[in-house]
């Protein structure tokens, strides 16, 4: 990986390239970071969040150096692919956690697994309680059903909320991401 911290100027340049409006640029930055994290997760890279930040840093530095980037997201993808290749060739320099973790499910004893499940469920309940009531209601309703009932319920929800089904799906997805992140933090604390 390339060394060197990101300067405020380089970061500012990246935001400006994403959008002239600072607030919208911030949102686009978060969207791009989220895409990068999933890319590394889906590819099976060892440290998705760190790789995503590394990709953004490299892109920001290139922009600060005056490289003309017409499509930031496409450029990010190319940089992310390069970083991924580096991780597979061991250029990362760190020990990858995958091999050691692969055997975790088999190694874990049943009692430990059961306790972990209970902890996760307790964390989920805490995180649901921490959400605004309407958000908690939305996510439980959105993901509860299966099959035909699920479709009918989602259609009814969208209608009741005055949203398109896609917009409702995005809202539910964001809530789910928040909830998942909250549960992850809660488990680390425990």
């Amino acid at each position, binding site marked *: 990986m390339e060394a060197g911290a990101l300067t405020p100027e380089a970061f500012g340049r990246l935001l400006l390239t994403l959008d002239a409006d600072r607030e919208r640029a911030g949102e686009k930055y978060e*969207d791009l970071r989220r*895409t990068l994290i*999933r*890319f590394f*997760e*889906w590819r*099976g890279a060892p440290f*998705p969040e760190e790789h995503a930040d590394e990709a953004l840093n490299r892109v920001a530095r290139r922009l600060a150096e005056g490289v003309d980037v017409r*499509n930031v*997201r*496409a450029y*990010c*993808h190319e940089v992310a*692919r390069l970083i991924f290749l580096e991780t597979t060739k061991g250029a990362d320099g760190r020990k990858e*956690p*995958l091999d050691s*973790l*692969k055997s*975790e*499910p088999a190694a874990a004893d049943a009692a430990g697994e059961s306790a972990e*499940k209970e902890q*996760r*469920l307790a*964390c*989920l*309940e805490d995180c*649901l309680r921490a959400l605004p009531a*309407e958000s908690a*209601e939305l996510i*439980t*309703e959105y*993901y*509860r*059903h*299966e*099959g*035909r*009932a*699920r*479709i*009918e*319920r*989602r*259609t*009814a*929800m969208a*209608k*009741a*909320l005055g949203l398109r*089904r*896609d917009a409702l*799906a*995005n809202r539910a*997805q964001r809530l*789910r991401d928040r*909830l*998942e992140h909250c*549960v*992850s933090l809660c488990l680390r604390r425990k």
Partner: protein
Amino acid sequence: MRRYLLGEMTEAERAALEREYFADGRLFELMVRAENELVDEYARGLLPPPARERFERHYLSHPARRARARFAEALAAKLGETGAAAAAEPPHAKPLWRSRPAFLRAPALAWALSAALLLAAAGAAWLRLETRAPRHETAKTEVPRAAQETRAGEPPAPVADGRPADGRPPAEPGRTRTEQRGVAPAPTPAAKPAPTFATLVLTIGSTRSAGAAPHALLAIPARTEKARLQLNLRESDYKSYRAALKAVGGTDVYAWERVNSRVTKSGVTITLTVPARMLADGDYLLTLSGVGESGELEDVSKSLFRVRKD
């Protein structure tokens, strides 16, 4: 998308899809949703065995993805509890979208049972066997049917509204059209014609349609070439459908992509055809998924039926 998530794509296919989802934020959101659907199905035990095995071997090999699957398990467990509690709530305490009858708010974990309810919903299910050309006029109609059947998933449309195209009432379960017409069977077994299709018609309602209903049985006479599964829906919410057939407790048998529906007077019909040789005696689960406007997949129905080869 599932092939990508399950590591079944070639490197070139992966890179192409990645370029697309980096360029199109909406596609990325669909990918995320597809991943959630996948982990939710795994958490609820709804993945067919080969996909489940692939999921466990590939998807769960990464710690972040494994954490996502465990989150889905916790969410499924929690929603199961919430669903049970919600059923006991007074109606006035519920938000607008929860104003539907309580039986529509069954716990998601009970979906496996809903397949049985759907089976019960198949109140109009009956078996209709079509034999090849006992009379000259029938032979004429069967030829174009057989030609249409070569296009998997496309409705050949010989039947509308659960009734034969000639407007007569449907055959009773286990009875052939030939029998209903009163046409005498061929005089000797050697001369008896082999059926072209064995057809099972399933009426897909919703889990509300629970009630007593006969078991859906697809009887396939010897030398039948194809089995036809006709699904009658009340309405069509999707531009196309995907269907998958698997043996209960066994392997995937057949899958149909981009299946179109056909609008009839009383609803929508989807016709699926599978070579009869691919079916053996036993129980089967047919899953129908709708493809939404932006490409996302949603389960529409799951139908259980039994195959008996005569």
